[in-house]
């Protein structure tokens, strides 16, 4: 499948696209959307006909909360994951048994592509639970017979001890956590000699970061791309050439569009990645706007696999990636607006402290309700931090500031200042 000939691939994609559109028609949202667009899946006779179909936006997934977009009855759904929504409620992703099989097959394909197998000991140092990175990689790695250590996140010294004591050869984590791990290992005087491969994803990272991680951890570093709406990680992955990511065209129909006009861009032009998944049962999607900015790379890869995408260079929207967690400024606004103690304005600062992202939110107090007591203020600060943690799944530092002290904006507010620089 990885080196399928272009003609055969197109036939397969078309056949799967037709199936996927019929799957989508089981969902109320798509019945409505297709009707509004005046298009029926039966009119899709070529792959290019997909342009006649409407886009799907993240906010539409949120509106279907919790199970409104599932195309299969709940009894056929064997797993739920969630990802951050743009406001308030999360986006819910469901998986049938076949979906889980497809997903772990993709992860297995990626890991096999970079030469991993049953001789490898794999430490999966990402968040398990609702985040897709943990269980996604876990089952893919088991599928190819790796020895899997579900170490999850946290307790960095223990993570390092495990790498050393278990002879770990492959680690999967966010690139910023990898750098933190390197630093702690160095301070412990550990050289982590068994490590040879690092799989890094969930946040964008640069080539200079690659050089630094490879030098300090003694690994070959690979970029991994995915999003929960498309199962999770595994959508695209670097091969040993490490020049662009192979996106799996048998499972995902890829378009690059101008995010402003929605027009499809010519091959090689940079724009927003739009994906129509071709094999998803529980949550079929049509022309899903990922918000990720990339381009299709011309030319054949030396490895013989299909067309690659460039490493993600940014976002077409305002989504932030903080310690691997997706955060929309609108979520923060939603939380703060619901709190009577909070005034009109807030500003978000993002910094990198010792290679880890820190989010600080300056919050103006409301003019009403100041008791004059320090402990009430401290309680308010704790409450705001707690509410943000509930919604974002992220610890933030909340700073209370005087009403009227934050800048006011005419026109579009610039509420987020990202001071991290490239990693």
């Amino acid at each position, binding site marked *: 499948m990885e080196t399928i000939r272009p003609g055969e691939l197109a036939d397969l994609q078309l056949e799967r696209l037709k199936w996927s559109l019929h799957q989508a028609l089981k969902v109320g949202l798509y019945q409505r959307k297709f009707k509004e667009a005046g298009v029926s899946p039966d009119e899709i006779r070529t792959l290019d006909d997909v342009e006649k179909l409407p886009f799907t936006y993240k906010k539409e997934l949120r509106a279907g909360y919790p199970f409104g977009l599932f195309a299969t009855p709940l009894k056929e759904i064997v797993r739920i994951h969630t990802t951050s929504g743009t406001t308030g409620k999360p986006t819910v992703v469901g998986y049938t048994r076949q979906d889980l099989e497809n997903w772990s097959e993709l992860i297995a394909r990626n890991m096999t592509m970079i030469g991993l197998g049953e001789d490898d000991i794999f430490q999966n140092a990402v968040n398990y639970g609702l985040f897709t990175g943990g269980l996604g990689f876990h089952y893919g790695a088991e599928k190819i017979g790796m020895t899997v250590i579900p170490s999850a996140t946290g307790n960095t010294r223990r993570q390092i001890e495990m790498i050393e004591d278990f002879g770990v050869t492959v680690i999967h984590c966010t690139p910023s956590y990898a750098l933190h791990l390197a630093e702690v290992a160095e301070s412990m005087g550990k050289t982590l000699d068994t490590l040879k491969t690092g799989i890094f994803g969930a946040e964008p990272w640069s080539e200079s970061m690659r050089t630094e991680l490879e030098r300090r951890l003694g690994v070959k570093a690979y970029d991994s791309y995915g999003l929960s709406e498309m199962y999770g990680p595994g959508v695209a992955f670097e091969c040993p050439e490490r020049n662009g990511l192979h996106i799996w065209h048998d499972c995902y129909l890829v378009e690059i569009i101008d995010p402003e006009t929605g027009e499809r861009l010519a091959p090689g032009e940079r724009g927003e990645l739009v994906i129509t998944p071709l094999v998803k049962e529980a949550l079929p999607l049509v022309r899903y706007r990922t918000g990720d900015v990339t381009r299709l790379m011309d030319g054949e890869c030396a490895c013989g696999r299909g067309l690659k995408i460039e490493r993600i260079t940014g976002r077409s929207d305002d989504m932030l990636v903080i310690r691997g967690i997706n955060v929309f400024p609108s979520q923060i606004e939603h939380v703060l607006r619901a709190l009577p103690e909070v005034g009109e304005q807030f500003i978000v600062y993002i910094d990198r402290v010792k290679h880890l992202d820190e989010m600080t939110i300056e919050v103006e107090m409301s003019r009403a309700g*100041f008791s*004059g007591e*320090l402990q009430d*203020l401290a309680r308010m600060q704790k409450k705001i931090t707690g509410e943000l943690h509930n919604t974002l799944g992220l610890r933030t530092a909340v700073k209370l500031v005087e009403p009227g*002290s934050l800048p006011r904006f005419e026109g579009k507010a610039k509420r987020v200042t990202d001071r991290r620089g490239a990693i």
Partner: protein
Amino acid sequence: MEKSYIVKQISIFSENRPGRLAAIAGALRDAGINIFAFSIAEADGFGVVRALVDRPDDAHRTLTDLGFRVSFTDVIGVKMRDEPGGLSDIASILGDAGINIEYAYAYSGKDGAVLILRVDQVEDAIRQILGRGGELLKASLSR
């Protein structure tokens, strides 16, 4: 009776950064308001400036108009002997009566020393102190 001893302290929210106290003090100076006593309590990134002033209502209005978050807090001012044991006398009265002190600050002026107290049961505290021969500032002194 007890009410006449309840003094209005002004409490001002302030960010913990250079120049905030100067801004508060400057505003009071410009309004011709005198500060008898004040203290700063600080927490994570912010603080509360507490002050006893000669015209609390004017101070409240002046600072609020400038955008500060201000509120009144009921405190009492107890005259202390300005010699060893002065604080102990007062603290003992409250301790014996089971009244908790939330915070306190003091000044020592030409008319002697004064302890300013924020307590959990203010009228009870006033009765106890007066009943045991203590002397309290009259609220009318600051008006």
